[in-house]
């Protein structure tokens, strides 16, 4: 299965990269949006099949390394192999 961790900056934390993208999108004529936030995605391939166990382990990884919880939010998705 794949474990997909999406990490984004918390609301209120300055996202200058998001602001720069915001400006350029508006220069291109796209105006139908507000508040762009950028982030990153980490994909882990895991052999285990027990969803709960995998979720628990992924959460521990986020807490210990993958995420700086002072400034970042995260969300974990599990995608099962077909």
């Amino acid at each position: 299965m794949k474990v997909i961790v999406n990490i984004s900056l918390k609301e209120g934390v300055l996202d200058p990269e998001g602001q720069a993208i915001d400006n350029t999108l508006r220069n291109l004529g796209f105006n139908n949006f507000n508040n762009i936030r950028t982030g990153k995605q980490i994909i882990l391939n895991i052999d285990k099949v027990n969803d709960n166990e995998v979720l628990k382990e992924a959460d521990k990884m986020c807490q210990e390394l993958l995420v700086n919880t002072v400034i970042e939010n995260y969300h974990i998705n599990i995608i099962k192999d077909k």
Partner: protein
Amino acid sequence: MRAAVAIFPGSNCDRDMIVALKKITGKSPLKLWHKDTEAPNLDLIVIPGGFSFGDYLRCGALAARSPIIKNIKNHISRGGALLGVCNGFQILIEANILPGSLVRNKKLLFTCRETTLEVQNSLQSPFLSSFNTGDYLNIPVAHNEGNYIANTELLKELENDGRIAFKYKQNSEIETDYNPNGSLHDIAGILSKNGRVLGMMPHPERSINSLHGGTDGLKFLTKSIEEIVG
């Protein structure tokens, strides 16, 4: 004086820091490698600037989980002095040794230039006790993620407890962008609760020779070492 410089893959100011420490103490500091699990008793450990582990994931994140960090934590629990410069400051924050966070510079630019620092009314710290509140030091910065942020409570705590070591300061009327990264309260460096750990974005080791354009870094390091040795 028993000093050491901790080196990670991607550190690039380690040699400059070694030169600076040797110039002051007369002997080369010990070099600690990121994988070292043993270290002798030391008076001072410096984590130098650079791009440890290529700044992958977050600046300092991977270095902060290296084996040497346990040694460094033991060192500070023994009351040893610890200085983190630039990427070293980022590592101290990622290792939860200092609070808050260092994020991308507000203007998205890597900034490499001289800054004016004002010494703050700080708690008793060997790094600052030779200076007076309001003293100025001209020391250069070179970083992409030096924008210090913290929540309101933490900022208040840092201000009230005298844990802000340096603030960027306007030094002339023409210099309007004196804060190179947008850090809150113009913070350039902070102290641990006991004042024996200092994290700072500016590079004192890049200001130790008149050919560098100034020697305030040498002055700062020399005074710090004198106080640490006692």
